[in-house]
């Protein structure tokens, strides 16, 4: 048992490092650039596209993909190694492309025509075209399949009306895959069909969603008589849910993994060292120490769980279910830890931004924590998933199973 690379991993790490040295500078500070808000600003986005194109030339943009579609046919572990190495360099974020390459394009590759694959994969890989995922709806929420956006056949075209919500990156996306309801008389999961479309199509409108923190990381997308040819259908009519399942599986992993660069025990430890409480330095306070220890063992446990997952990949095995626990550990901890930090600061803990200690990092984390507990699967949904998929417990009782969608109870 050790943390060393296998010979192959070591070899690949060397290659990757050499390429990165030749094409980027090492980080000086330890900031995480993966934040979405940054990618909203045009210059970051331009830089991101440039860096993505560079990686694409070398096959590093998605190195687990086959060579034919621009990958290296590499192993998942090589992907991990490359990310570890890339993170050490001062490069533009790859955030804007993750959804497209992680979810949308694989769906296109699995269900699209030869022509569409030839047309869309490479530009997405190079970052020339950005894709977003249009599944969630106001009426859906945790019950994604309850979506209402209609697609109606009109000659050889489909006409889409409705709206989507929680769409990450829609504001700078060129294309999107959209899940629609094509048969309201069929049961919920049976009447869906998947399409892709240009976000520049007439009738598509993107509006940012303002969050409790005041920032906007998501969008609403409205469709008014958006007309697309049948050629942009992905999978059979009525098979949309099967098409979506692959995509969703990826999302859970993606969001679940995205817990880097967050406030955690190190920052709280630092704060406890700086602050004086009624009985002396906060770091000497027994209650503070117990909290630090409680949160540390959860963070460390998660870190070493990730190492176990990587080990499975490294050994060419399927990662175990332990990967599914990340978000359920991280999100509530962030909420409690940041609130605790504010309590340590006392009345001055109510200040935010530049008036607050550490520029209000804890206060901001506390404002964002509720979203983290909900986005990409609420705490409750994730517990259900662990219970059902990992422990094999029965699903919740389904009253809307074989009911026509337009007859299913909605309280309306």
């Amino acid at each position, binding site marked *: 048992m050790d943390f060393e690379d296998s010979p192959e991993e070591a070899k690949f790490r060397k290659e990757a490092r050499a390429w990165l040295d030749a094409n980027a500078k090492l980080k000086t500070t330890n900031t995480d650039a993966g934040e979405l808000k940054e990618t909203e600003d045009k210059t970051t986005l331009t830089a991101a596209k440039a860096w993505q194109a560079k990686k694409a030339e070398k096959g590093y943009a998605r190195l687990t993909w086959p060579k034919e579609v621009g990958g290296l046919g590499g192993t998942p572990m090589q992907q991990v190694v490359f990310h570890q190495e890339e993170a050490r360099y001062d490069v533009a974020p790859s955030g804007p492309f993750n959804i497209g390459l992680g979810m949308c394009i694989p769906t296109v590759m699995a269900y699209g025509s030869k022509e569409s694959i030839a047309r869309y994969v490479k530009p997405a890989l190079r970052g020339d075209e950005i894709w977003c995922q249009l599944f*969630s709806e*106001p009426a859906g*929420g*945790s*019950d994604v399949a*309850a979506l209402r956006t209609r697609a109606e056949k009109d000659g050889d075209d489909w006409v889409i009306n409705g709206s989507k*919500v*929680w769409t990450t990156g829609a504001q700078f996306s060129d294309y999107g895959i959209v899940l629609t309801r094509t048969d309201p008389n069929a049961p*919920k999961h049976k009447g869906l069909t998947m399409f892709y479309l240009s976000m520049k199509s007439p009738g598509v409108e993107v509006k940012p*969603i*303002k*969050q*409790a923190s*005041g920032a906007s990381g998501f969008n609403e997308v409205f469709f008014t008589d958006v007309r697309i040819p049948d050629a942009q259908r992905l999978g059979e009519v009525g098979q949309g849910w099967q098409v979506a399942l692959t995509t969703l599986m990826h999302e859970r992993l993606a969001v679940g993994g995205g817990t880097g660069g967050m406030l955690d025990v190190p920052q709280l430890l630092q704060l406890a060292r700086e*602050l*004086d*409480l*009624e009985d002396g330095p*906060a770091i000497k*306070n027994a*209650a503070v120490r117990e909290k630090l220890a409680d949160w540390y063992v959860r963070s460390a446990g998660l870190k070493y769980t990730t190492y176990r997952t990587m080990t499975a990949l490294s050994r060419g095995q399927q990662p175990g279910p332990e990967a599914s626990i990340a978000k359920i550990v991280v999100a509530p901890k962030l*909420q409690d830890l940041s*609130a605790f930090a*504010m*309590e*340590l*600061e*006392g*009345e*001055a*803990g*109510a*200040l*935010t*931004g*530049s*008036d*607050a*200690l550490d520029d*209000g990092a804890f*206060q901001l984390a*506390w404002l964002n924590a*509720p*979203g983290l*507990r*909900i*986005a990409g699967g*609420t705490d*409750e949904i994730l*517990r*259900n998933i662990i219970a059902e998929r990992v422990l094999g417990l029965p699903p*919740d009782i*389904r*009253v*809307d199973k074989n*009911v026509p969608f337009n007859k*299913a*109870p*909605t*309280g309306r």
Partner: protein
Amino acid sequence: MNFDFSDDQKMLKEQAHKFLSEKCTPKTVRAVYESGKTHDAALWKQIGELGWAGAAIPEEFGGLGLGYLELCVIVEELGRALAPVPFSSTVCQFAEALIVSGSNEQKSRLLPKVAAAEIIGTLARTEGPGAILPKNIRTTFKGGKLSGKKTAVGDGMDAHFAVVLVRASDEPGERALQLVLVDLSQPGVTRRAQDSIDPSRARAELTFDNVPAEPLGKQGEAWSDLNRVLDRAAILMAFEQVGGADTCLQMARAYAMDRYAFGRPIASFQAIKHKLADMYVNTELARSNAYYGAWALSTGARELPLAAAAARISATQAFDYAAKESIQTHGGVGFTWEYDCHFYYKRARELSLALGAQRVWKDKLVTQLELSNAA
């Protein structure tokens, strides 16, 4: 056994509720948030006209002299409605400081204005993050002049008067401390708005440069006076917190009943049912502790410090839990700006920090248990 409010007090509560559900809707709160204003001046004025600010202020000082039980039921309704007015700072803190430490002359001069909500008052203790201890107080009071800086002062941009904790001599520890009353309209007072968790309870930095001020209470008694004021404010504001927690529960309940997923109201899922049940349990416990505090405050019982700490801890925990789990129950929309959940989430945190952190009150509580020996 007569451990509940009287019918008259309940009627007053009902009237307050009726008034606020017309005059202080979530839209009122949102308007303050989005206008960049610090509070709703019109509502504050009406509250003055209704006499609520003077409910517990004796008639001789221009109040209604109803008593603290009456004030408690009013504060609960203000909390329930998240009223964006400087009531807590002015009535629960500033006025209580005058009542605890003020001379007859000082009371006669200012309490009538408070009762009419003609002035806004505040309590300025904090000079930075961490503990507030005698040794940390650097603001000075020498020769009748106040100099120094206070931060995170509640309603600091609007307050006309402040009660400020200062160092009046070079003696060590508490003996050096003094509470002073200062008119903030004077030259030498600089205010700087600060960003804070709850913009409808805006905070500010106050800088004093040789500003004339008057002592409030005796030097050397300032520390114990201040703690008496905080205890009384804690009980009153516990009702504000219980009101807020109760609204969160009602909002979450209404949403869960109305929102369907998987063909059923989400209120039919045990994960939601048990969450709401826990909200209810916490809120009931907090309410009962607050009632005990109200009794202690209204009778001046010697159990007041213990009752105050218990009321505050219990109410803070109940509101914190209800506010965050109400968002969770709402799901995606819960953390949007468009929905009201975040106003309560922020107010819950604001109130938790307003009178000092949980740990301070827990320590106070156990100290009282050690004294009373009657946990």
